[in-house]
Structures are given as C-alpha cells and as structure tokens.
C-alpha cells in the first residue's frame, strides 16, 4: 500500500472512511454498498473535473473556467441532440470532448502565446463562456422531452451495480493516472510547475505543456457538460454555477499544491470524494439545511490545516542525532510524485 498511496493519501482515505462511518451511525444505510456506489456515482463529475483542474494546477496555473465550459458544452450538445436526434451518441460525446478541448485551448493559447496569467485569462473566459451559453440558447432551456432516450439514459445504465457514469469516472481516473505517471506529457506537467527554469533546461516546453494541460482540462469539462446534462435531464445557462471553486477545493484537499508541481491522482480523487461524501451526507443526517454551507467551509479549512501540518519544513537537520531520526523517514522509497 505504502508504495501506491503516499502518507497523505492514506490519511485522506482514513478521514473519508471515518466520515462515512460517523455518518452511518446517524443515517443507517449510509455505508451500504448501494449508497456508497451512489455517492461515487454522484461525485463522478466532480472527480473528472478535479482531474482536469489538477493537470492545470500542476503547471502552476489555475482554470476558473471549467464550470462555464461545462455549461456551454452541455448546452451545445443538448441543443445538437434536440435539433438532430439522429446524430449517434458517440459522435455527440466526441463533440463534447472537442468543444470542451477547443474552449480549453483558447485559455491555453492566451497563457502560452500571449502570456496572460492563467487566473486572469480564465477569470475572463469564466464569464465569456457562460455568456456564450446564453447567446447560443437565447436563454431557453433544453428539456427532457427534447433529448433522445439514448442521450439521457446511457450514463445511467447500471453495469455491475454502478451506473456507466461512475464507470466513466473510473475509466478517466485510470487513463489520467497512466498519463500523469507514465507519459512524457504527464511528467512534463510536474516538471513545468515544479521548477519552470529547470524544465526548460531539461527540454520541456513549459508553455506548450500548459497549453495541453488547459486543453485536457477543457476536454474533461466538455465531457462533464454532456454527463451533467444527461444526469439532470435539463440544460440551462446556470448549470454548475460556482463549481469551479469546488474543483479547486477538491484538489487542494487532495494535497495538490496551488503553487504547482505537487500532487497525485489518488489525492485529487480522494479530495473530490471527500466533498462528495459530505455533500451527500448532509441531506440525510438531519442537519438543518441552513448549517450545510458553514460545515463544508469549516471542513475545507480543517483539511487544509491538516495537509499543511504535514508539509511543515523539517529544516536541514544538520546535527547528527537529528539527522538520524530523519534518515529513517527518507529511507522509505518514494516513487517521485507518482502513485
């Protein structure tokens, strides 16, 4: 285990399990396999978005436009589906990925070629993309009856007790894990954010890496656009409003540094699940709806505090005895930031 999951992820996993156990004392059945599958399924979209956000955060950037991208792409594919019901679903999903990637590429282009700070570029496109969703639809909704059955029902088709939506998340996690740990592009993400100068010297094109990170984040947002619309069977301009901060929160709770270069796929997934567990638990454990927001805020702060305690620099431990106690820790192999 220790080779696959680093200490931080292990801690987060334990926290997640403790939370689930605690909640199930108040809401029997919360920990049942069915309920857990439910929570995972419900968190799938956040997980996928968080993985995209993670790619961007790793390169020392941030993508605030993920939710707006989701809204625009969701609206676009829903309208496409309603106007041309004959277009097969795989093509629509490809369109969602493509549109999303295109919007992500716009962000990436501004960061790479013009040199606008990512937070500024995506703060701009955050409003622009959602505005475009409004322009595209004229403010009208796309309703359930306008969408085809295949469009609506495919992601909710259960396979081995988990809907396809959940399986999609698992597939994305697997692909991203391989991409981040075992491809040149994935390692470039870590390098570009960890030390841009060093990355340049090592032959990594930092700007281009950022561009592709944004494109990846965009493509995943686009995919989520489709998944969202089909899950809630309606498309309107405001969908997923404010979700960009949830994705950042999931990453941060999962130990991905907003300063780039640090983080693991496991962390991002567990961070998203952490938020998912809380979001799903609060409605069932008899907590006043008015308390939910404060509790999630508090929980984020506590998670960040816990994370930071682990990060505390240990100093250089020059004195022999101090160094000895450290060397025990160092000796445990660490496989880069892979995991």
């Amino acid at each position, binding site marked *: 285990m220790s080779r696959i999951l680093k200490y931080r992820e292990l801690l987060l996993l334990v926290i997640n399990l403790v939370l689930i156990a605690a909640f199930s004392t108040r809401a029997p059945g919360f920990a049942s396999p069915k309920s857990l599958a439910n929570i995972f399924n419900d968190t799938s979209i956040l997980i996928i978005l968080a993985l995209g956000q993670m790619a961007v955060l790793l390169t020392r950037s941030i993508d605030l436009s993920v939710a707006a991208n989701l809204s625009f792409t969701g609206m676009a594919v829903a309208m496409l589906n309603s106007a041309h019901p004959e277009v097969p679903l795989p093509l629509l999903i490809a369109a969602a990925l493509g549109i999303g990637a295109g919007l992500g590429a716009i962000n990436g282009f501004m960061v790479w070629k013009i040199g*606008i700070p990512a937070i500024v570029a995506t*703060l701009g496109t955050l*409003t*622009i993309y959602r505005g475009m969703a409004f322009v595209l639809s004229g403010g009208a909704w796309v309703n359930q009856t306008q969408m085809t059955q295949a469009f609506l029902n495919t992601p909710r088709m259960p396979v081995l007790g988990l809907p396809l939506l959940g399986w999609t998340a698992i597939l994305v996690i697997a692909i991203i894990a391989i991409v981040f740990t075992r491809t040149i592009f994935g390692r470039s993400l870590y390098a570009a954010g960890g030390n841009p100068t060093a990355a340049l010297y090592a032959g990594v094109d930092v700007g281009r890496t950022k561009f592709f990170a944004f494109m990846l984040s965009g493509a995943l947002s686009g995919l989520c656009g489709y998944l969202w619309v089909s899950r809630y069977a309606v498309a309107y301009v405001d969908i997923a409003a404010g979700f960009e901060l949830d994705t950042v929160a999931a990453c941060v709770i999962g130990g991905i540094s907003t300063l780039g270069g640090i983080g693991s796929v496991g962390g991002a997934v567990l961070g998203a699940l952490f938020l998912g567990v809380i979001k799903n638990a609060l409605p069932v454990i008899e907590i*006043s709806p*008015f*308390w939910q*927001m404060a509790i999630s805020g508090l929980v*984020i702060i506590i998670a*960040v505090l816990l994370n930071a305690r682990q990060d505390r620099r240990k100093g250089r431990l020059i004195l022999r005895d101090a160094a000895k106690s450290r060397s025990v820790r160092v000796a445990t192999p660490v496989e880069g930031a892979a995991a």
Partner: protein
Amino acid sequence: MSTLAAEKRPPRHIPDKLSTPAGRLLGSWETLLAAVAIAIFTANSLASPHFLDPWNLSDATYNFTEKAMIAFAMTLLIISGEIDLSVAAIIALASTAMGAAAQAGFQTPALVGIGLSVGLLCGAFNGLLVARFGLPSIVVTIGTMSLFRGIAQIVLGDQAYGGYPSSFAWFGQGYMSDFPWWPTIPGFEVVTFEMVAFVVFALLFGILLHRTTFGRWIYAIGNNAFAAQFSGIPVQRTKFILFLLTGLMSGVAAVCLTSRLGSTRHTIAVGWELEAITMAVLGGVSILGGSGSIPGVVLAAIVMGLVTFGLGLLNVPGIIMSIFIGLLLIVVIALPIVVRRIRSRTPA
C-alpha cells in the same frame, strides 16, 4: 572617510531616473485606462440620450462604489502576493450581524460599529490562518467564503432582517446635500455619501500604498517575501494587517450595501469577490503580486461602472454585459504585453 575605490577613481555619477515624467506618464497603465474610460464615456453619450444626465450618472456610481471600496483593500492584498475570496461572504456575515442588532433595537452608530467589527473579526480569522499558520490564502479563503456565509445562513435561515433605523438608510441612499454644511453649488446636489466615501477611501489607500513605509513594505513583500524578511520587514504582521484591512473594508461595504438595500438576506452580495478581483486586475494589479496602483484601480472601477451602466441603458442583458467585462479584462491585460512584444521585435 575615504574608500579604496574612491582613491582609484572619482565616483561615477548615476542619474536618479532615466525617462522624463512625461515619457513615463505616456507609457503607463493608468493612461491606457484613462483613454479607455474616455472612449467608453464618449461612446455612451453618443449611444444613449439619457447618459449625460447628472442624476443618472449619480445613480450609476452605485454600480461600482461599494465593490471598489473592497477592491482598494484587495489591491493591497494582491500586491502583497495574497488574495481574499471571502470578501462577499464577510459582507453577508457583517450585514447579518447588523440586522440582528437592528432587531435588538440598536441605533445607527452601534450598527455601523458592529458591521465594521464583524468585518475586522473575519479579516483577523483569515489573517490568522494565512499569516500565522502559513496556509495559502486562495485555499483558506475558499473555505472561509463558505464558512462566513454559512454562519449568516445559520442565523438567518429563510428569514430576512429588516427594520433598520431610518437614519441608517443614509449611508447607502443619502446625498451629501442632506448636510447643512455641504456647499450648495449647483450640480453638486447629486453627490451621494457613497461617492464621497469612494473618493476618501481612494485617497486614503492611495496615500497608504504609494506614500508610506507600510505601502513600500507591501511591494517588497509581494515581489520577494524572503528578501523583505531578510531586510527586517515584518512580513507576517504586514499580511495580517492587510487581511484585517480587507475585512474592515468589506465591513464598510456591508454597511453601505445593507443601508442601500434596507434588508439583509444570506445571499447578499453573492459573487462580489470575483468582481472586486476583476476590478483590481483590470486596474493593472499583477495577480502574481508585486505591482499595481490605486489610481489604476480607481480608473478600472469607473470603467466597469461606465460599461455596465452604458450597456444597461441599451438594455443589454446582464450576462452579455459580463461577456464585455470578460473581454475587456483580457484585452486590457493582453494589449500592453502584445505591444511590448511587437516593440521589442522592431529594433528601436
């Protein structure tokens, strides 16, 4: 006192500055923004016959005055390399506290005091987490953003606080001409309290940032916190004070907004954090810290106010307006970068 170097050669003369003041003014961000403001002002007056009406312009200032007051403090914070996403939530909490106090029968001065104190407290909480525990501010304030508004929601639930004393309404709705000592110059009766507050705070923050030791510290910290610390600058204390200031200004905005609305719900000022940050960034504040100016932010506030009001007069839907603001932000940030790049390509 002689030096070896001096014995060898007389010291070289180093000029204070390279360019002339006029040259610096011409190339500055503020000049660019002022040009944009004038262009939008002209476009607005051509596009709508209702634009050049003093009362309308006076109403239009409400589009930006409160947000700008937060943006001033946010500017300092961003220059120092931090950020506060919880400002709108602080407004909600401060407003809720004032509402509760008003229900309990407190009078206007006490209400204002309570609003500002809650703002300060929230700022202190953020400051503590960032400056004392060394947590990244973007993450901390994502958390406190939910926490502060969440507390407001716990207190208010689905209810609203109203029933503020009538004198309280003056901060957000009053005109300076309500004062006997305000000069009765024709044309000046449209000056609102918030406008005066905007100008006063712009001056205060401008002086604080550009003319005091504290302001210099902010730049030093934002550019290189280590070097600042190694120069004896109290880095963490400065950051803490900046969070306090941001909290306080959110409290001020809460007083103005609550007074203007006359009621408090927990959704008050939703989304303002991004608008305040947009204002600062549009004003030329580097989101990475280290540079920016108050005059720039003042101009950016005016530009944003003019754009929203001008488009409002043309009944452009708000969401289309936000496309304009987003484009404006990107174009104004990109323009100097692109121009600089083109200029460096053609040899001078």
